[in-house]
């Protein structure tokens, strides 16, 4: 009885090249030292690791569990230790990395306890399915669709035909051929399990007629089991599931459905063998048959490779001629993709590795233009018009691509194989598919964003309406009250005694408040603050105007007439600002003199403040290191910059070192101080906060080091960089040490409650502002650097940048000094005797600081502006001179400010 074979249209018959590997039996390579197990070896969601680094695992033990419905678990292919769970390069056409589990083999290859099902006919079907799923069995033909999911997708009586795919149509590959020849019984075992599960009417094994031995072996194994072995003609791509289904049954799978929808399931022979192993032996899928072939191998053969084995291990085993190796193809020559390195792991779907020489897979010739000869459409197994698809793909005409059924293309490569113009057609289709998918995603996101935007608008609208309503209500209530009041005034007699009592109470409260105010006013502060406030408002208004004009100036760069005008305007405004500031300063100073307050509470904050200061510094250092490291990252690509970067990094490190030292000192210092003080509850949380921050910092430093390391990886073997990295690492270690010290140190720090509470806010405010400033300065420098990056190697710009950096450094130093300044003062304060001067000194400083801060802010703004201009100048070389000048001016201003700040803090 022979089945009618339905020929599909198209197809090609490339040279088979199967003889090289098909004559040798399946070999067992030695155990590799290390296995890399990607978490995503199947289609669907990646698995979720259930082990952690350092765990010892046994062969067959679950390492990662399936995560979601369409997903598959990963098991340990041998016994050993988990050394890492990290992103590693995986065999993917993109060459990108994916999370993997790294397993160090212990050489014992010790099995975990297995739980085979002795009699599957007696077992529950759900249990069997679960078992197959838990064993991590996926389609071994190439797609890697989880096998159990496919089985469970339809209830048993819906599947009438099971097609077993032994066609293996790609040239070179003989893995299934060897499997069928040597392990036909296992395959049949798997088929029988499948029959038990699904109860199909028909089971057909399709094998191409170039594998007579496999046909014989399968026929022998199937004898008397009502399984049909059908021989199909050798024509690529008959091994494609839908092609094979058509060959054997004459049925087409509709384009918007899967084969299960028409009652047909198709499994690769390897998958069925794995199903057999999973049920009968209880073994999870931890190895597979992989063909090793290609001219660059001494002994092409099939091996049973453990999943995760590095490819070079296997190639070595087959006698790789390294000097002849030109390209390494994973999969067959028609659909496989090249690997750029040989240490990629074998996956569950890796059916073949071709170590090809130059002669074997020569680089593609330069494509000529398509002459629409139509050979491609003759070869297309799904009756597409590849030449039209190519044309539309080139024109990016997505509508037409869809219309020409681009998404029905199976990327078999038959068209590109026959193309006389050597056009890489498949790549065009893949690229267009990707583009269309991306656009669709974009479209969806746009829809979604639109909805969110509209929601937000609606919300804002509603809020506004609510506010409006509230305001109205308030107004109404006020009106009501007024009316009532009027009414009350009209007949006071009506007022109840209780009410008047209440009123009295209110009055009393008010009186009290005024009294308090008065006393406080006497104390000096509030009065000043009123004046100050006024001045401040004025100042800020003028400043805003100044800023506006400056921006206008920046915008107006082109027209010179307006320029002068604006400039004078700005000058005027600046002058105004200066006078205002002076006034402000005076005002601020005035009250200080009149501020004889209670014995101040200053002692405590000092310590606290020092810590804080150090924290800020360390944050700055951290930022600098980070910056340097980011630069280092980038340097991975341009080796030219390395020297410069190294320098920067070193500078940053020295800075960091200094800071650490300071911090250590600080951490050490406070320890003895508070010993005398009462233990209190307050400080503790504060400390813990600081600790937390330090911890975060340390974590970040670590991350930075890691990044640097990665950059180093990319940059290749630059000893200098390595050194830099080591230094960075050391620094990180030191930071951590410092942190520990800090964490230990401050515990005893607390002092009296009262003073602490009062003093803290003052200091912390000033510091915060300083911090913000520092951050802004940093940002400015960074921007400048970015501009530099863009501008390429313009020495002038570089100089400008260096100056800016120097300025920033100065500013920072100044700030440091300013922050430090108050520190020594209060040292003697534990004694109440010294209170007065301390109190006095403090506000003065703070005011001056403020003034300086404003100046600094202005300078900063100028620098920022200049740098933004510099940014723009990345494209326009003509403006550079002008900009440089501006920048220099700005820097001069900044320098002046910094100087002043210095002086003040001194």
């Amino acid at each position, binding site marked *: 009885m022979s089945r009618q074979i339905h020929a599909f249209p198209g197809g090609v018959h490339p040279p088979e090249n199967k003889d090289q590997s098909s004559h040798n039996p399946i070999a067992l390579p030695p155990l590799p030292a290390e296995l890399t197990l990607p978490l995503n070896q199947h289609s669907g969601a990646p698995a979720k690791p259930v082990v952690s680094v350092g765990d010892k695992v046994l062969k067959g033990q679950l390492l990662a569990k399936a995560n979601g419905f369409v997903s598959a678990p990963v098991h340990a292919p041998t016994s050993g230790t988990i050394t890492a769970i990290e992103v590693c390069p995986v065999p993917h056409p993109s060459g990108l990395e994916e999370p993997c589990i790294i397993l160090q083999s212990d050489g014992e290859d010790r099995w975990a306890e297995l739980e085979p099902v002795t009699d599957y006919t007696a077992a529950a079907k759900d249990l069997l399915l679960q078992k197959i799923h838990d064993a991590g069995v996926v389609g071994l033909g190439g797609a890697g669709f989880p096998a159990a999911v496919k089985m469970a997708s339809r209830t048993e009586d819906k599947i009438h035909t099971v097609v077993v795919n032994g066609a293996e149509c790609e040239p070179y590959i003989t893995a299934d051929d060897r499997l069928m020849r040597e392990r036909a019984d296992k395959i049949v075992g798997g088929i029988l399990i499948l029959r038990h599960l699904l109860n199909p009417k028909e089971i057909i094994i399709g094998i191409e007629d170039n594998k007579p031995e496999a046909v014989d072996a399968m026929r022998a194994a199937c004898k008397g089991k009502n399984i049909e072995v059908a021989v199909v003609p050798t024509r690529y791509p008959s091994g494609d599931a839908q092609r094979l289904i058509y060959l054997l049954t004459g049925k087409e799978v509709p384009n918007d459905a899967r084969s299960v929808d028409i009652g047909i399931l198709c499994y690769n022979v390897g998958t069925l063998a794995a199903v057999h192993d999973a049920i009968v032996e209880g073994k999870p899928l931890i190895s597979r048959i992989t063909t090793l072939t290609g001219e660059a191998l001494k002994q092409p053969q099939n091996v049973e490779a453990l999943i995760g084995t590095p490819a070079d291990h296997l190639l070595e085993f087959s006698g790789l001629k390294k000097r002849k190796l030109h390209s390494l193809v994973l999969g067959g020559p028609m659909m496989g993709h090249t690997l750029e390195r040989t240490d990629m792991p074998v996956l569950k779907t890796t059916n073949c590795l071709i170590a090809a020489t130059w002669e074997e897979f020569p680089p593609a010739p330069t494509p000529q233009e398509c002459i629409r000869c139509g050979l491609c459409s003759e070869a297309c197994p799904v009756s597409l018009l590849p030449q039209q698809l190519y044309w539309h793909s080139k024109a990016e005409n997505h509508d037409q691509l869809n219309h020409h059924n681009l998404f029905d293309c199976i990327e078999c490569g038959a068209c590109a194989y026959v193309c006389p113009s050597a056009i890489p057609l498949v790549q065009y289709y893949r690229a267009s598919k990707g583009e269309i998918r991306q656009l669709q995603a974009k479209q969806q996101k746009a829809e979604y964003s639109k909805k969110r935007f509209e929601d937000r608008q609606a919300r804002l609208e509603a809020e506004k309406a609510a506010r409006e309503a509230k305001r109205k209500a308030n107004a109404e209530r006020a009106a009501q009250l007024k009316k009532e009041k009027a009414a009350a005034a009209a007949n006071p007699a009506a007022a109840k005694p209780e009410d008047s009592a209440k009123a009295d109470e209110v009055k009393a409260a008010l009186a009290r408040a005024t009294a308090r105010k008065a006393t406080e006013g006497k104390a000096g502060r509030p009065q000043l603050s009123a004046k100050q406030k006024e001045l401040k408002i004025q100042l800020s208004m003028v400043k805003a105007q100044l800023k506006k004009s400056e921006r206008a100036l920046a915008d107006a760069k082109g027209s010179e007439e307006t320029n002068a005008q604006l400039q004078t305007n700005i000058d005027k405004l600046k002058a105004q600002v200066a006078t205002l500031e002076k006034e402000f300063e005076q005002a601020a100073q005035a009250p200080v003199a009149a501020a004889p307050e209670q014995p101040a509470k200053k002692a405590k904050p000092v310590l606290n403040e020092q810590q804080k200061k150090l924290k800020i510094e360390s944050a700055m250092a951290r930022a600098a290191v980070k910056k340097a490291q980011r630069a280092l990252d980038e340097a991975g690509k341009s080796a030219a910059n390395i020297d410069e970067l190294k320098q920067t990094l070193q500078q940053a490190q020295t800075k960091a070192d200094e800071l650490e030292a300071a911090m250590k000192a600080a951490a050490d210092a406070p320890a003895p101080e508070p010993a005398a003080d009462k233990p209190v509850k307050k400080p503790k949380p504060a400390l813990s906060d600081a600790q937390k921050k330090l911890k975060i910092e340390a974590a970040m430093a670590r991350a930075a080091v890691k990044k640097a390391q990665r950059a180093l990886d990319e940059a290749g073997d630059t000893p200098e960089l390595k050194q830099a990295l080591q230094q960075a690492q050391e620094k990180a270690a030191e930071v951590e040490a410092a942190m520990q010290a800090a964490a230990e140190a401050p515990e005893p720090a607390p002092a009296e409650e009262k003073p602490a509470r009062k003093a803290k806010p003052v200091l912390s405010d000033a510091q915060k502002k300083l911090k913000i400033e520092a951050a802004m300065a940093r940002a400015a420098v960074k921007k400048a650097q970015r501009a530099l990056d863009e501008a390429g190697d313009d020495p002038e710009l570089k100089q400008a940048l260096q100056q800016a950096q120097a300025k920033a450094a100065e500013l920072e130093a100044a700030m440091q000094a300013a922050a430090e300044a108050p520190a020594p003062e209060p040292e003697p304060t534990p004694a109440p005797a010294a209170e007065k001067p301390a109190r006095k000194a403090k506000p003065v400083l703070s005011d001056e600081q403020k003034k300086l801060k404003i100046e600094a802010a202005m300078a900063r703004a100028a620098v920022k502006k200049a740098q933004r201009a510099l940014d*723009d100048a990345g*494209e*326009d070389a*003509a*403006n550079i001179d002008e900009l440089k000048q501006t920048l220099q001016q700005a820097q001069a201003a900044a320098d002046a400010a910094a100087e002043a700040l210095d002086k003040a803090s001194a």
Partner: protein
Amino acid sequence: MASPTPEAREITLNGLWNNNPALVQLLGLCPLLGVSNSVVNALGLGLATILVLAGSNLVVSLIRHQVNDAIRLPVFVMVIAALTTCVELLMQAFTYELYQILGIFIPLIVTNCSILGRADAFASKHPPGAAVLDGLMMGAGFALVLVVLGALRESIGQGTLFANMHLLFGPVAKSWSVVLVQDYKQFLFAILPPGAFFFMGLLIAVKNIVDNRISEAKKATQDKPSTGSKRVRVTGTVS
């Protein structure tokens, strides 16, 4: 009326080159290709078109405030049609032979001019002076292309230039005809419809090339406009 103001210069430049109706906007192609097989035909229609365009622009500009928006277009079309009829009658009277040759393309100036859209786009928004200048220049740009095309086709197709000019300018012009090549074997392609399309295509390409050169030269001297300068904030930033 055509004072050399920058505005007038711009109008002139637009009409003759930058926004040339025939080469850039690909408008008025029908008569352009239909009658451009000799210089005399081209010139005849070109002059007629200039006349109608300038006249209609003037009229439309004069009545632009009186015309209701809803019936604007029909009124303009009617104005153009009236003027065209006048020109048609004039040609019938004075250059009857040419009128016969140009045939249907004279009344078709109506659609041509309404396509040029100057009445609606320009004249209805500008004072009469500018409108007339615009009409003249647009018409001149059109006529220029027409004549160049005519000269090209006539010289390549027949080997002559300015033949039969007397049809337009009277017997004086009979001697204007220039024979470029003696015993020229007619290259019918140039005279037949395909040649009209082809030479028009060449003219457009030549203009593209010249424009490219100009813009490249400009690019070398001018600096780039700042990018991303027209941004508007959607959301409140600092409230």
